[in-house]
């Protein structure tokens, strides 16, 4: 018998036999209608920066006012005058010197301000981690209240890699002092976009 079969046989012999049905997940109602307010408040609390914008022109204007010196990459066609496109088949190590990455978020979650992104949003898996600063463009109406609604949206979705990102990279390992910018992005700006 292979190790696999031995383990499975042992588990089968030892697992409890009583009926243990899966619980119902519909008992978690949406508790807020103010998803945008909650999203922005929570994002600020966890060290992110929410910025409301009407359109891509306002994002460009914001970046003009808050310039990032260095390499800027983006997967968003409307921002191509500001950033180089993300090289799809390049060695991910070539992204080592990226100062700012601007990518699209699929949707955001109000209760924890996490934003769902998959590699389809930005071609290279390492992008939101290796950049010094991260900006995510999120359509204002793409917000859900809680994680249950989030996974309803992800029901049956296909992705090779997907991640909820909530704020900048952080650590409190040294005497519980919060420091932003552990290994991933030092800052996270979220452009909440009114007109897509």
């Amino acid at each position, binding site marked *: 018998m292979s190790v696999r079969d031995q383990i499975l046989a042992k588990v089968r012999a030892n697992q409890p036999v009583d009926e243990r049905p899966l*619980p119902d997940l519909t008992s978690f109602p949406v508790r807020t209608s103010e998803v945008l307010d909650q999203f922005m408040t929570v994002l600020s609390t966890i060290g992110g920066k929410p910025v409301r914008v009407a359109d891509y022109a306002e994002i460009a204007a914001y970046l003009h006012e808050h310039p990032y010196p260095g390499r800027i990459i983006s997967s968003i066609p409307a921002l191509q005058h500001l950033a180089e496109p993300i090289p799809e088949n390049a060695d991910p190590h070539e992204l080592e010197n990226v100062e700012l990455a601007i990518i699209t978020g699929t949707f955001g979650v109000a209760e924890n301000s*996490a934003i769902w992104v998959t590699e389809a949003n930005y071609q290279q898996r390492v992008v939101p981690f290796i950049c010094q600063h991260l900006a995510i463009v999120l359509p204002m109406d793409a917000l859900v209240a809680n994680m249950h609604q989030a*996974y309803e949206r992800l029901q049956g979705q296909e992705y090779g890699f997907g991640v*909820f990102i909530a704020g900048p*990279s952080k650590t409190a390992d*040294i005497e519980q002092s919060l420091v932003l910018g552990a290994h991933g992005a030092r800052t996270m700006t979220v452009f909440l976009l009114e007109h897509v």
Partner: protein
Amino acid sequence: MSTKPKHPELSERFNADEPRVDWHDATLWWIRQKRDKAAHTLYEDWESLRNTASAIKDNVLGNLADYLESFERQATTNGAIVHWAADAAEHNQIVLSLLQQAGAKRMVKSKSMLTEECHLNEYLTENGIEVVDTDLGERIVQLADEPPSHIVMPCIHWKKEEIGELFHQHLGTPKGNADPQLLTEAARQHLRDKFLSRRVALTGVNFAVAETGEFVVCTNEGNADMGVHLADVHIACMGIEKIIPRREHLGVFLRLLARSATGQPITTYSSHFKSPRKGAQLHIVLVDNGRSQQLGREAFRNSLKCIRCGACMNTCPVYRRSGGHSYHNAVAGPIGAILAPNLDMSKNADLPFASTLCGSCSNVCPVKINIHEQLYEWRQELTRQGKVDFGKKMGLKMMSTVLSSPMVYRSMGKMGRWTMRVMPGMVSNSFNPWFKQREMPAAPKESFRDWYLKNRS
């Protein structure tokens, strides 16, 4: 019986520095309070989330073999390669052989309590592999050549001045500088170089989904992702109990995990790995190492529900005042004390006694493990198995005689009160463990019973 120091002796060492114990205690209590605050923001859903999480895990324990097969099937379809390890030694051999296949002598690793449990680092180092732990807290204890003292905050027992000195020696930070911002930045630069130059990255697994074959890794620092997305080979190691049935169940567990652990609404990154990056390899190592055995122990199987949030440690009055290393096990605290005896009863027979049985651990547990009841069950089981030392056994036998006979109880009480009043030196001395770190109370002249009999009219 092993002669290695046990929990009482190790706690005594930790308690030699009293201000440090107070600081450790206060730090962990502060984290417990952050957990309370986070739980209260969801007060309408919190208890129902805990019940739901516990019920999902009940279902998992009852159907684990089928879920494991489903996970393996789906993960394989997704392009991952699944390995099975019966114990720590097999797990370590698999990881080493994957490194050898890749021709790699160096590896980055993000936090995985399973690899601590298997002592993977020591094994790989003996076999000529350099392992760099990339979680900041883990890197700190690794540089200091120590195991983590907490499953979520590995260097919670370290003061920033000591970390400053450690980094001065190893990373060349300015001597005497203990600024967390500066030290974190130094670690960021130091580890970024490792991320960019290592071709194999190992991670743990927080949840693995039977339905889809994907698994989720939660970090705040982003170290797991920095390692994996820059490496050619990703090795993910998981205990077989990490399985959950469906993707939608992640909604329940991700709402509970970070709130229970640190009081955050969610960790910064909740990464869902389903298939390998184009041109890269993904290996998943499924490890039993005693879990199937624990599954068969009815009184203890619920311990397999644990999602490793550490809330039971932060709240535990014993853990807070004895420190993680006093548990001499990869997982410390109350949950460690009910997991460890399953792995080795003789070596860990002291741990279920390292508790006041106050029940606080069970009250904060996000998956409602009856931790304090299991601690009590383990004490009985270990005594039955003859794993409890003679002194403790005789002491308890004597207690039982005294407490089961009212007459003996009364006369012993009388003798005790008399001794404490007339010859306090008989009890207030170093032979009496109750005298350590505390004064004995003043003995009254009469017992409550005597007083009551006189005054009840």
